[in-house]
């Protein structure tokens, strides 16, 4: 018993050392980590991960120089984020793919009204070398192309496009699809890997996937989803959460968002959320 016990203790020590070593974030340009920085957690739509990664890096290294706030980001699909937050009720900020997802949490007092920070527009996503394809009916209903369609109930993009084209027609898209997906990233991945010819995604998505490009759809012009940020009522560090939210609405953040293809506007939103009908 002594030998297995000793072996186990040694292994546990090694494991704890590894975890500890991993937990110490390698200094990636933040030389101001003296003292204990307050950490806030952002629940963020997985599709936003590239831009959110850059936003947090910039915030941590510059904007928060004095207050030294550290941002942790938990990435999941928006619907999942919200559903799990009802259970977990922990975290400081919510940034879903559309303010639509914030609404139930706002209604039940779990988060503050969303401040809209950016918009994205629906479009078709195709391989970089694909030729022009034609109308929506020709591409998605003809059966000539392999398609990847985001699920209406799972992905914000699915909701939006279904509200434009009508539920019945969207169901036809799904029925004729090679595959239907829960997230826009999965759709883009399908196109990127050449599994399908065409998919429905955001204008920002193709920028993340090297082998893809966006095709705007005339009928979808003027529609967009609004990405908002809410402070969660579970936040134990509201000041820090507000600081990051403020940063996300600021000029510096707008520049970064634009670079990633998001639309930012200073005036009041035109179309609002995905629920808006033309």
């Amino acid at each position, binding site marked *: *018993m002594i030998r297995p016990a000793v072996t186990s203790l040694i292994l546990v020590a090694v494991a704890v050392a*590894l*975890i500890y070593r991993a937990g110490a974030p390698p200094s*990636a340009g933040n030389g101001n980590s003296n003292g204990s920085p307050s950490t806030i957690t952002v629940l963020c739509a997985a599709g936003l991960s*590239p831009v959110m*990664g850059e936003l947090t890096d910039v915030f941590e290294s510059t904007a928060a120089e004095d207050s030294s706030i550290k941002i942790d980001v*938990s*990435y999941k699909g928006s619907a999942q984020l919200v559903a799990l937050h009802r259970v977990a009720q922990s975290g400081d900020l919510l940034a879903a793919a559309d303010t639509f997802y914030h609404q139930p949490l706002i209604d039940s007092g779990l988060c503050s009204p969303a401040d809209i920070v950016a918009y994205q527009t629906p479009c078709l996503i195709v391989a970089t070398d694909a030729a022009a394809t034609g109308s929506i009916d020709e591409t998605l209903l003809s059966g000539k192309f392999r398609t990847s369609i985001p699920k209406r109930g799972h992905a914000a993009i699915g909701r939006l496009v279904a509200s434009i084209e009508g539920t019945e027609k969207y169901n036809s898209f799904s029925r004729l699809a090679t595959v239907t997906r829960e997230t826009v990233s999965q759709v883009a*991945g399908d196109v990127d890997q050449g599994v399908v010819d065409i998919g429905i995604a955001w204008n920002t998505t193709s920028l993340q996937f090297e082998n893809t490009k966006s095709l705007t759809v005339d009928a979808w012009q003027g529609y967009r989803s609004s990405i908002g940020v809410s402070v969660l009522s579970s936040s134990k560090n509201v000041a820090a959460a507000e600081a990051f939210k403020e940063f996300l609405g600021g000029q510096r953040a707008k520049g970064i968002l634009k670079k990633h293809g998001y639309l930012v506007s200073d005036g009041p939103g035109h179309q609002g959320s995905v629920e808006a009908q033309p």
Partner: protein
Amino acid sequence: MTHGDRNFIKVISVVAAAYVGLLLAMVLANVMLITGDLASAWGTLARPEIQQAILLSLGTSLLSAVLSIWIGTGIAYLVSRERFPGQRLVDFLMDLPIFLPPLVIGISLLILFRRTPLAALDDVLGVAFYVPAIVLAQTVVGVAFVYRTMKATFDSMSTRQERIAQSLGCSRFGAFCKITLPQARQGLVTAAAIAWARSFGEFGPVLIFAGSIRGRTEVMPVSIYLELNSGNLIGAAMIALVMIAIAAVVLFVARAAADEQKISQEGGEQ
């Protein structure tokens, strides 16, 4: 060998070759993909959060495997050797983590730690969405696999040696340590290897219960998920290959440990 026997061997050989070939092809497909763009593959590995994820994966899976072995072996011994009310129920419950979808494990843990009076404790300890949540999620599943392996091992071992050891002056505990455990070593090595491998690759429960928080609860399977979400397929494939490499080393060592035991037990043959 009769004609029928030869055909039997032929058929299973073909099936085996097809399956093994498929596995190999899957690995090679990853390799092919990353060789197309080695620079970005290496670039992914060079990122600090990915290196953190590798360390965190190694640490948590090792810790979970050790915990799983102790807990699972204990329960297996109890159920295998003792008769007590509710024994069948225990035996059934130990299968839950095996047949339940991993997501359910994660959700159940999350509900338990956040929507019950345990939440007050969790607020203080910080389990959910922190490293302990990873270890807990991995261990819950790991224990079940250790239990299955060790129960089969103990069941196949006669209790007679233990009893004789007791008649020679050992306590029950002494007999367990000196007789049962050493003879179950093959099973222990197998159980440890399975527990570790499961923990290392655990994704669903970790995603839900520990969150997929970059640089905090990001283990390698979560890294793959996050890389896929941001369109970095090559990076995801690269991380997968690193996982394969790590697992190959660990499982090779475990196999070697098991074989060494076998040889030393069979050693000294006349």
